[in-house]
């Protein structure tokens, strides 16, 4: 009789771990890969140092006129001087505090949502969705509680971008879900109405929608009907994006196995209960990347409101570029716009990844 002696664990060979092994495996695994690595390194060498030189080292940061920009690098003074307009648009300077207050309030309301076991979460979410917009609207618009009235045409800059996109997102997701459910409905009228809405809004360019809503719509409405331009833009964006959202959600609904619907039915759940408790939670989780994709597109599409005379951040930057005192600083202005949009879009993308990880419940089936 022999006794088995377990083989002791040995350290791996030195060529399979550490930095050198990583380099060999990832950058120089074949001659083609080595060539690509060297080529990419050369391109980075060509572009990165001059960019850093221009944007950071040679750049002018402080001052209040173009005389401060002498060094030949980027003139961030231009962005600094115009910053208020980029952020608040044409909103009266003395009333900036109202926008800041609304922003601080939103941040304070959002922080608890990220705390795992916050006791009043159940009340906070509906409040952020339904209560907060009313407060924010009263703050922005004024006319109540002794606040000076500020008409919507003076709202602008990043504020307007954020208002348009958050309203667009908050409206397009539920609308999209309803349209997606409608499109899969057994009821022929509900189904055909949903299909027509989706295909119509998805088939026209957003510019057309915005242009029609601001130029054509007033022609059809009775004389003297006032219908706020910003509100029309919001409705246009929400309907347009909800059509895209509907198709994203529908793709998720189709991925749910039939057995889930049957199990829900067999337990006696009603249609809305089985959708709300069983199907949608799973379907929406599956299509988080698609939803965030649509949100990011929506966020960037808000720049199109420029054509109906609403001044979002990009429009304010463009207006500043036309200022005779600051001619020739387009690169700085547009770089700043790109950076701001990128920061927002990238945060959304990271948030969606963390959400996916949080909602992952092991092996799905």
């Amino acid at each position, binding site marked *: 009789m022999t006794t088995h002696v377990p083989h002791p664990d040995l350290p791996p060979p030195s060529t399979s771990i550490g930095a050198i092994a990583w380099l060999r495996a990832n950058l120089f695994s074949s001659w083609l890969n080595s060539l690509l690595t060297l080529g990419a390194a050369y391109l980075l060498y060509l572009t990165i140092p001059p960019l850093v030189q221009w944007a950071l080292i040679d750049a002018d940061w402080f001052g209040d006129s173009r005389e401060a920009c002498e060094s030949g690098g980027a003139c961030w003074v231009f962005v600094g001087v115009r910053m208020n307009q980029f952020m608040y648009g044409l909103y009266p300077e003395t009333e900036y505090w109202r926008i800041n207050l609304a922003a601080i309030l939103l941040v304070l309301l959002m922080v608890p949502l990220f705390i795992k076991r916050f006791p009043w979460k159940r009340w906070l979410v509906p409040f952020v969705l339904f209560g907060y917009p009313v407060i924010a609207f009263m703050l922005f618009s004024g006319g109540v509680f002794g606040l000076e009235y500020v008409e919507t045409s003076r709202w602008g800059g990043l504020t307007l971008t954020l208002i348009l996109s958050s309203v667009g997102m908050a409206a397009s997701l539920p609308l999209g879900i309803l349209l997606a459910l409608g499109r899969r409905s057994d009821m022929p009228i509900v189904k055909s109405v949903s299909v027509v809405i989706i295909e119509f809004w998805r088939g026209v360019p957003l510019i057309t929608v915005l242009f029609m809503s601001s130029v054509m719509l007033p022609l059809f409405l009775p004389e003297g009907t006032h219908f706020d331009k910003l509100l029309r833009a919001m409705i246009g964006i929400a309907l347009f994006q909800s059509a895209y959202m509907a198709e994203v959600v529908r793709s998720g609904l189709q991925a749910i*196995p039939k057995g889930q619907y049957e*199990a829900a*039915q*067999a*337990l*006696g759940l009603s249609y809305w209960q089985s959708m709300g408790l069983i199907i949608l939670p799973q379907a929406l989780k599956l299509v988080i990347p698609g939803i965030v994709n649509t949100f990011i597109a929506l966020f960037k599409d808000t720049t199109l409101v420029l054509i109906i005379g609403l001044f979002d951040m990009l429009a304010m930057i463009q207006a500043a570029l036309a200022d005779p005192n600051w001619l020739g600083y387009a690169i700085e202005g547009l770089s700043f716009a790109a950076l701001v949009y990128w920061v927002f879009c990238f945060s959304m993308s990271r948030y969606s990844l963390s959400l996916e990880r949080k909602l992952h419940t092991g092996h*799905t*089936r």
Partner: protein
Amino acid sequence: MSDANTSRPDVDASERLMIELRHVHKWYGQFHVLKDINLGVSKGERIVICGPSGSGKSTMIRCINRLEEHQDGQIIVDGTELTDDIKHIDQIRREVGMVFQHFNLFPHLTVLENCCLAPIWVRRMPRREAEQVAMQYLEKVKIPEQARKYPGQLSGGQQQRVAIARSLCMNPSIMLFDEPTSALDPEMIKEVLDTMVELAESGMTMLCVTHEMGFAKTVANRVIFMDGGEIIEQNEPEAFFHNPQSDRTKLFLSQILAH
């Protein structure tokens, strides 16, 4: 054999039928899948339905809780006739539990949440009470320790037992089983069958589509053989297995009992 007989309480035939199918027909498009099905199930009766695939056995039990719609004839469950009336359908679904071949647990909810969901939302039971009931049934199927896990973390046999517990939480008077062990690895079939035998001994009315003939012999009051959308033969298990009447039943039995 005497053991099997004592574990089989006599069914009172005079009692009202729990399930009654009268001249039920169903078509999938042109395909006539159920042909003039007549069946009465008494309270506490345990019926095993077998037959080749495509014979309509699953379709028949799925008609009983309206997962499939029959196009002709009557289905009456516990005195309520299945019609297009959504109230009748809801009422019947509350009375009838169903266990599926592929378990169909909700993967985004824990085992406990799977069990509590319907009692809370359909029966309007307070959450705490629903959780107590759920734990009782999870203990009955012998997996209370898995209550906080997600279905994806359990084995097939454990998932099917959770599915049985989930149905029982609605306190149904009838249980339908649609090939409950067909998707399981061989070593897990026994744990599920044991649970079903226990359930049978508690007096539950059961309709079970299965090819587990051992289960049929020990538990069933009646075995039904279906083929081509018709009920070909039905009898007590003893007579059904030892003295089949129809040629098709004989052929089927010789095929499944041969190995």
